[in-house]
């Protein structure tokens, strides 16, 4: 073990850790803040909130995104909502309960200290967003409304129609634009980070390619924050935006940052099924729909081709309600997804290829009326109809699980700092709070907690505690990093092979979905570990990238991302293979209870797997951070 995995969770009672830590950290004198430069890569909820808040505090900030405007970061697409332990509904919620639900939902594979802090901060997030003018849903009395999400028996999810992510991101984006106007933040849109610059063991900058001019340049700083989102697109088809990628965190991994739990992937149960070969992405139907929709398949295989309306109640299998009576349709995502797969594997799936289950609103429409349903989910129903040409007010939706979120990411300590000093990681890009499965409406919460409330404290501590010598653009480490990026770009462009970038991406995605998707086994993972390196080799010999590196070239951008996915995919399979247990989204077929639930092995696997890059062509090293549970008793998860 070579990397240092000290989690730096403060000692003392759980409820006092964060307060104590805030008192213990070093502060930067307000007059000195302007002298520090912090780079924030990413302008999603985590990045935009961090960049805006750093600037408010007085730091000199640069922020980067690959889209043409920071407002388009993938967080914009989040639909359902954001959790907070406000207990406005008086239904028994508390910080303690949100903490417990999150740890349990994550199948006891996350750090207590981090998760408790997240639950504490959740309440401040809502207040901050309201102050910014986020138009959360309201009751007639003018107070904030809530809905329920999976894995919880209280109603703690705040929302803005089906566009919660959009409204939260616009709040953060507007705060960011306010700071840009004041001169505290310099924004670099259409800019892609292609490498990390490490000098004397510390993160001191990044290498950036301007997507319009193709210019590759170093940007230097005192600290770097990565908030570059998740890597679900390693599966090609996912609910992520097309540009979502692993490049920033993968390049940093190769510069020494440990990658934690890469195999923890969330497959979301309610997405619109694949329609054809040309499919370019999958569309999520928010989990909030499970508040009012009932999931079912025909009880008998013979009924699979029958119109849903013609199948009588008695011949329907509301399998979630049957198997998990206390959580029913609101069972956590990993469980609901596997149950859908099981029903389809059993030959009872509906729609093309038998890969679909019904999500039926007929009962809710009868009970509440079509108007109420329209008010709650109108935009989602419209989106569904636009894609499938079917009217979900009249016929049940057809849904199927799809890749949605990655719980794995760069390893970070309590300060959200990676194993490279000075490199901090926030939002979906880190591994921190969701263990082996994330609960719905908790990613938005985590991204904003990291950016608005955690990093502004901990980055100051880092800057105040370390003497950072100035770095020059002529430093050998800087020149080498820039040269590496240029060499890689030229290499990609020089191959001039026969296969398109997209075809490699699709093939990789297919391997990942089949072998490292909803269910994994040793045999399949071994196969994948042979197939991926071969595919990667072919990529580097036979990919074709028309055009040059000196101007706007989307194929080149895509190629760089696929090259990194081709490496990451292998690490994911390796991680999935080594974890000889099932937990949350990681389901190893060999390890299940008699009734088919995930079977953990706490004795051997209650740890974070933090992989360390050991050099090209060498097997990565496994480091372990043991998970210590002082406040929660580990138990077999039950939603029955």
């Amino acid at each position, binding site marked *: 073990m070579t990397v240092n995995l000290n989690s730096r969770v403060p000692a003392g009672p759980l409820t006092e850790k964060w307060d104590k830590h805030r008192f213990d950290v070093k502060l930067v004198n307000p007059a000195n803040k302007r002298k520090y430069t912090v780079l924030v890569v990413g302008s999603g909820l985590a990045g935009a909130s961090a960049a805006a808040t750093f600037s408010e505090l007085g730091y000199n900030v640069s922020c980067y995104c690959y889209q043409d405007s920071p407002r388009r970061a993938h967080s914009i697409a989040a639909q359902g909502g954001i959790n907070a332990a406000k207990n406005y509904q008086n239904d028994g919620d508390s910080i303690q309960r949100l903490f417990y639900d999150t740890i349990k939902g994550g199948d006891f594979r996350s750090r207590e200290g981090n998760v408790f802090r997240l639950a504490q901060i959740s309440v401040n997030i809502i207040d901050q967003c309201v102050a910014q*003018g986020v138009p959360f849903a309201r009751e007639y009395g003018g107070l904030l409304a809530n809905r329920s999400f999976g894995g919880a028996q209280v109603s703690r999810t705040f929302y803005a129609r089906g566009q919660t992510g959009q409204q939260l991101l616009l709040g953060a984006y507007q705060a960011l634009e306010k700071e840009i106007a004041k001169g505290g933040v310099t924004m670099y849109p259409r800019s892609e980070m292609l490498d990390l610059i490490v000098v004397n063991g510390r993160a001191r900058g990044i290498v950036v390619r301007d997507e319009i001019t193709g210019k590759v340049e170093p940007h230097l700083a005192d600290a770097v924050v990565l908030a570059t989102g998740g890597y679900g697109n390693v599966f090609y088809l996912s609910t992520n935006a097309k540009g979502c990628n692993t490049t920033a965190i993968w390049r940093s991994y190769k510069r020494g940052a440990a990658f934690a739990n890469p195999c923890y992937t969330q497959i979301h149960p309610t997405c619109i099924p694949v329609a054809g070969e*040309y499919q370019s992405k999958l569309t999520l139907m928010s989990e909030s729909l499970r508040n009012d929709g009932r999931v079912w398949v025909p009880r008998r295989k013979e009924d699979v081709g029958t119109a849903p309306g013609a199948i009588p109640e008695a011949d329907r299998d509301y399998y979630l309600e049957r198997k998990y009576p206390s959580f029913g349709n609101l069972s956590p995502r990993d469980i609901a997804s596997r149950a859908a797969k099981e029903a389809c594997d059993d030959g009872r799936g509906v729609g093309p290829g038998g890969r679909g289950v019904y999500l039926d609103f007929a009962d809710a429409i009868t009970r509440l009326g079509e108007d109420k349903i329209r008010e709650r989910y109108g935009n989602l129903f419209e989106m569904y109809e636009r894609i499938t040409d079917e009217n979900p007010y009249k016929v049940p939706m057809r849904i199927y699980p799809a890749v949605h979120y990655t719980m794995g990411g760069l390893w970070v300590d309590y300060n959200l700092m990676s194993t490279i000093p000075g490199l901090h990681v926030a939002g979906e890009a880190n591994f921190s709070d969701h263990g082996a499965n994330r609960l719905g409406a908790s990613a938005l919460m985590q991204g904003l907690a990291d950016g608005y409330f955690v990093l502004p404290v901990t980055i100051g501590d880092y800057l105040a505690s370390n003497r950072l010598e100035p770095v020059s653009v002529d430093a050998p480490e800087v020149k080498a990093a820039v040269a590496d990026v240029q060499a890689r770009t030229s290499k990609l462009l020089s191959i001039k092979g026969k296969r398109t970038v997209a075809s490699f991406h699709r093939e990789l995605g297919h391997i990942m979905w089949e072998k490292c998707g909803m269910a994994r086994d040793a045999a399949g993972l071994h196969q994948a570990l042979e197939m991926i390196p071969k595919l990667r080799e072919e990529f580097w010999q036979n990919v074709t990238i028309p055009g040059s590196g000196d101007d706007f070239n989307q194929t080149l951008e895509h190629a760089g991302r696929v090259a990194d996915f081709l490496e990451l995919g292998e690490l994911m399979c390796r991680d999935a293979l080594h974890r000889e247990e099932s937990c949350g989204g990681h389901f190893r077929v060999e390890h299940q209870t008699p009734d088919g639930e995930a079977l953990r092995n706490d004795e051997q696997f209650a740890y974070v797997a933090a992989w360390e890059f050991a050099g090209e062509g060498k097997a990565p090293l496994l480091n372990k951070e043991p998970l210590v549970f002082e406040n929660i008793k580990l138990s077999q998860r039950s939603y029955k």
Partner: protein
Amino acid sequence: MNLTLQVWRQSGPASEGKLTEYQATDVSPEMSFLEMLDVVNEKLAEKGDLPIAFDHDCREGICGSCGMMIDGVAHGPSRGTATCQLHMRSFTDGDTIVIEPWRAQAFPVIKDLVVNRSALDRIIQAGGYISVATGGAKDGNMIPIPKLDSDSAMDAAACIGCGACVAACPNGSASLFTGAKVSHLGLLPQGQPERYRRALRMVAQMDLESFGGCSLFGECMEACPKSISIDVIARMNRDYVYASVSAVEERALGGEG
């Protein structure tokens, strides 16, 4: 079905562009418009030709990245739909489709169908926010907001910033975009302290960029993928006029009206 595409190709901001013809064959009606272009692009790449550049990301109508003129109509023939949500079932076998970038002075072409929309960000910088720093906000339920107000604010806040309104407007005005933000924030109690100052500054910035004036043609509302109502422009104009006559720029207006 088989389609003929006439696509605007322009290699860079300074070069001349022209329409070039491509065949899109075996198009399935279930495909989205962008998936149809993906297929065309993959064929181009296989031949070593340059694929057609176009902005896109979420492909579900929310990020505002995509946008093109399809047969002269911003985002194409379906109402309330972004280009990425348009499906090929809206077209028929044998159609010829003309595809061009947003045409507006304020949106210079970068390449093919990709334009520079940074002017929209600068309008937000001019005042499209509420000036609260992180921390110290009071409890969210301390500010009760009538459901109707909050719903109307949300209607305006739904804008995805794609720029279709500008592209559709004969004058190239950004009034729907700007009005949407002025209305979203101006309808909420939290937005009152800066309400008039915001309207003044955002309108001033809009004028500084190369956007045209608004003649209330209403084309913007027709093109808007979120069907944002032209009422937001009236609201912006009222706030602007009030602000101009009472010179509020210097006098901070307080209170939670």
